[in-house]
């Protein structure tokens, strides 16, 4: 049975809504006690970042990133919310001053095991497209898809995470593989959400959308069953859906 685990030790996360592109908004990471905060990436072409979470607690994001403008930044208050315009080489980066924060869950995931990279990518894109319609979740990686899923630990002391060798097709013959026959490519979709139910629902619609011809199996990163306190059992999620 596949078990989804919280990937990060600290389950606090900023959620944001992006506009303009599908690349990662995890441009910078600010480490604060008890919190992992993902902040928008001003370096990503065409990106503009807006607060999508009305929460009691807020953190200043655009209000800090504005200093990148080196005095050429300007702000606009539109419909009672302040935005910062930061001139960049590509044009102009627009970011909202404050973002809502609340306790949330990071690192839910599932793996799509396909016969070749083309069909696996197609399945992953269909899954992400369906999952984006679910409120309260984000898929934080570029395009919502991860090619290089990781396992906890490494043979190197300085590295806390390394390639998920059990799911690497090119290592099938030399490691304790978890790939069934006929699988030649694996992609991961990582889900961060405000609550368990939202992640479960996103997982369900994602898996349903990903099950196209050429996909041999759906699995998940388990991380030894000892990472984080939230567990998402794929079979139970799908069973719940079928009994609705």
């Amino acid at each position, binding site marked *: 049975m596949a078990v989804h685990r919280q990937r990060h030790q600290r389950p606090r996360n900023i959620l944001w809504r992006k506009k303009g592109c599908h690349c990662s908004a995890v441009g910078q990471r600010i480490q604060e006690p008890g919190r992992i905060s993902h902040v928008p990436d001003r370096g990503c072409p065409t990106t503009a970042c807006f607060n999508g979470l009305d929460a009691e607690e807020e953190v200043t994001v655009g209000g800090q990133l504005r200093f990148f403008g080196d005095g050429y930044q300007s702000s*606009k208050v539109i419909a009672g919310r302040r935005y910062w315009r930061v001139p960049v080489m590509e044009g102009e980066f627009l970011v909202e001053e404050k973002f809502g924060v609340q306790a949330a869950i990071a690192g839910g995931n599932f793996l799509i095991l396909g016969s070749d990279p083309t069909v696996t990518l197609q399945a992953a894109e269909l899954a992400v497209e369906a999952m984006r319609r679910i409120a309260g979740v984000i898929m934080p990686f570029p395009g919502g898809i991860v090619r290089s899923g990781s396992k906890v630990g490494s043979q190197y002391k300085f590295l806390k995470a390394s390639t998920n060798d059990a799911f690497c097709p090119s290592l099938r013959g030399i490691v304790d593989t978890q790939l069934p026959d006929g699988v030649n490519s694996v992609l991961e979709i990582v889900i961060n959400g405000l609550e368990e139910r939202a992640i479960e629902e996103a997982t369900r619609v994602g898996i349903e959308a990903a099950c196209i011809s050429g996909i041999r199996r759906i699995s998940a990163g388990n991380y030894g069953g000892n990472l984080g306190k939230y567990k998402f059992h794929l079979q139970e999620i799908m069973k719940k859906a079928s009994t609705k």
Partner: protein
Amino acid sequence: MTILTLKTKLEAPLEAAAVVPDRFAGKTEADIAGLEVAYGNETAHLGDFFHVDGEGTYEITLEGDLSCVKNIAAGMTLGKVAVHGDVGMHLGAEMRGGEIHVHGNADDWAGAEMKGGTIHIRGNAGHGLGGAYRGSRRGMNRGLIIVEGDAGNETGSLMRRGFIVVTGNVGDFTGAFMIAGSIMVFGSLGIRAGAGLLRGTIVTLRDPELLPTFRYDCTYSPSFLKMVFQDLKNHGLSVADKYMTGRYRRYSGDSNRLGKGEILVYDQC
């Protein structure tokens, strides 16, 4: 709601600074009729000129030709004022909050030095819209003014914050000595727009005659304009899609001063 209907023809200016929701709330009809106003050089009472209908609330409606009535809703902090007819000078001047809706024209200095709230004029506005009085260091400082018509000279002069939208044309010296804030003009700008601009934004959808102290930067689609147009749609204005998705030429200035202001001109090409 309190309804004030003008019952006499005014032959001199009537200074009606008492007509603000803050002063009406909780008063009886008689109390409201007894509020002091200045008629020419004499002190009079509101009831001498208006028929008062309804107890005092935070919602006031005025009816009649009020083009000689000054200072309506000046300094208001909350509530709603609706005017059906033309209105005189200093409408909503120095207001801090609330809403004013004018179904007619407004005279000079509407929203002058306002610090919050919304003024929506469904007609033309006079000179000094959202501007600074003579000798003042700052004009409008927060708030929103929408004029669905033309506006006069010195619109938004010395403006510090806030937003002025004029769907028609504006006169000369729009945004003169503006400190910050935004002015959007759907029609044409008069001459010397943005003279002495420190910071702030002037947007126009027609090609203006710019001062030589403004320099061309680039042609692009500013993301924030899409949000501004969407907000204006929410206020009931119609905005063509081409302006939301179109490109704008950016000119920086006024280089005679700080030069961090901008004039954005819709690129017809």
